[in-house]
């Protein structure tokens, strides 16, 4: 099936956000906006939001913005159905979502309702949200994406892991493009179980085969380099060997020392609460914004710390501006 061709190159062609007070991805490079009282879901149509949990709504909104940014404005009514649809572009588009706390609200709300009113108290509309893949599922349905569909619930590194698996799907030739969404909802179930403060928002990017992006004349916003998930931050960064970088995106809660020489360090969304499974995608969106201002530069995204044996791990991902040829 697969010939001796080189694997497809994965590039990023768009990014979008759904975070209160943030007008666009460029805001990720500056201080937290002064006015964050608005509803991050204000831009979502009532029809799109119907019967969906908060994480799904946030991800649909950020995803729609990323698609528009990539020059693929999505008609939110998929009309491309039937057996042949799997051979058309929607059949070659995948989805990868990342969230650690996404459906805790549904799970906790349902067991409360059962305790109070027996099984008759549970809302049948919530059944799909009991499974943690509900976000990726609704993105696929809403935007007509019939390719591989993955949900990473992988702890601190989850967002960068999601970007990695999206690139894998493109490089393996399983799909031509992937919408990646990282989302965490802020609600009582999340703060009750994981503690405060919870982040409430989503970031999304479009990962695409370089050949397919060139074929449709889409500008490349970032190139994706090496990725590793290892025992700790030092090991992960050593495995991707980025050399000196222009931008280093720090893991949650920061890190004392840059793992490589970095001209600029950034804690993406540092004051917005625990970004968890959204953080890696927020970092990649921030890198896209950075490359818009700093051509010929390179960025290192890092999530998780790892460290002692009972910790999980850390992940690192190298990104480069489209003009960077180093």
């Amino acid at each position, binding site marked *: 099936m697969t010939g001796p061709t080189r694997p497809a190159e994965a590039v990023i062609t768009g990014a979008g956000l759904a975070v209160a007070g943030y007008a666009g991805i460029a805001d990720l490079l500056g201080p937290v906006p002064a006015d964050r009282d608005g509803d991050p879901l204000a831009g979502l149509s009532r029809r799109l939001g119907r019967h969906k949990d908060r994480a799904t709504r946030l991800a649909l909104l950020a995803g729609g913005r990323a698609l528009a940014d990539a020059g693929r404005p999505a008609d939110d009514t998929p009309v491309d159905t039937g057996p042949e649809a799997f051979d058309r572009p929607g059949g070659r588009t995948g989805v990868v979502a990342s969230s650690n706390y996404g459906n805790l609200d549904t799970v906790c709300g349902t067991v409360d309702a059962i305790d109070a009113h027996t099984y008759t108290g549970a809302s*049948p509309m919530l059944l799909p949200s009991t499974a943690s893949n509900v976000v990726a599922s609704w993105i696929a349905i809403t935007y007509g994406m019939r390719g591989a569909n993955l949900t990473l619930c992988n702890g601190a590194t989850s967002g960068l892991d999601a970007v990695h698996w999206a690139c894998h799907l493109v490089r393996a030739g399983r799909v031509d493009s992937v919408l990646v969404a990282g989302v965490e909802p802020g609600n009582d179930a999340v703060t009750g179980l994981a503690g405060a403060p919870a982040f409430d928002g989503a970031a999304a990017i479009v990962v695409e085969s370089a050949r397919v992006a060139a074929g449709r004349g889409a500008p490349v916003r970032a190139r994706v380099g090496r990725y590793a998930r290892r025992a700790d931050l030092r090991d992960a960064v050593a495995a991707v060997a980025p050399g000196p970088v222009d931008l280093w995106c720090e893991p949650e809660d920061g890190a004392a020392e840059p793992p490589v020489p970095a001209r600029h360090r950034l804690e993406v969304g540092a004051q917005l609460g625990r970004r968890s499974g959204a953080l890696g995608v927020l970092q990649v969106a921030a890198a896209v914004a950075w490359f818009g201002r700093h051509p010929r530069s390179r960025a290192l995204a890092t999530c998780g710390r790892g460290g002692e044996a009972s910790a999980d791990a850390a992940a690192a991902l190298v990104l480069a501006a489209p003009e960077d040829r180093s």
Partner: protein
Amino acid sequence: MPGGIAGRGALASTGRTAEDMFAALCAGRSGVDTPRAFDLTRYRTRHAFEIDDRPPGGGDVPMRATGWLLDAIGAALADAELAPDLGDVPVLIGTTLRELRSAELAWRQHTDFDTDRLHFGHALRERFGATTTYTVTNACAASLYVLGLGLDLIESGAAETVVVAGVDTISESTFGLLDRCYPAPPEALRPFDRHRQGMLQGEGAAAVVLRGTGDARHGLLRAVAVNCDAYHPSAPDVAGIAAAIREGQSRAGAKPSDVDLVFLHGTGTELNDQAEALAMAEVFGDTPPLATAIKCMTGHTAGASGLHSLIAGTDCIRTGAVPAITTLQRPMDEAAGLRLVRDTVSGADIDLVQVHSFGFGGLNAVALLERGR
């Protein structure tokens, strides 16, 4: 290029090893029982396929899924004669509910639970020193879906060894919502039966060690196709299932007539079995292969179910035995043309097995497994 299945491990209500599970399936022994974890005054449903390992005295305890996952992977590594020290060997875990049952217990009963352990990375690091681990929550298609990613890594040369596993426990939110959604509580899980009433949940874990073709003592994994219906959050779509079957066969370089046996997803729900039977008829026409469905005995083991079927498939190839759909009495009309296994088969010559695993969100995974050479 195929991958080799070098080791395997499995457990469920029907047995605590892959060998015991297959013996139970061939003997027609079901793992169904009265649910032990929940206050049954809150429910109509009286059947579940639980693993009976809670401490005596009633009530539920956290972290059971994690324990089964570690057991299944440990068994698969031992079977493959690999040391339980994985380092950066990729470990791909498919699950519907990860440790959400532990989150429910923490929420309702304030039992200790660290939400960092909703995913399995910490436990895999502690037990196996594994750091390149991924918890992929791809609903009931999860373990077969990630098997496809694992095969990609073997084929591209990115990894020499990949551990692929699936696990799920029964959460109270899913147990209650299924009860809410069915017109009547199912008395049995009856795949492809005219009087099927719905799915009953099961618990379990399964793991395989995937390597190159030189390490194929349990068979060759020829291909895994994955896609998404993009149609409905819970209902299946014939077109998506048929497309996944065709892509799986195409990736494997196989024709429909090459397939000797199909492990159907077969959940006993109105819609799954209808869509799956129609997709089978569409692909195989008038000459379908033997087909069976094991959830009648294991319950729907969700994220583990795809690998449970695949591992049983390795036993069918080796022994020539094929378990029957024990609860099937009167096949539904759409399945009239299928060769559903009604009584345990023995002495069959099975070289190529097709395995189905579908999930909420329209997720479809289809694997093709061949006798090792």
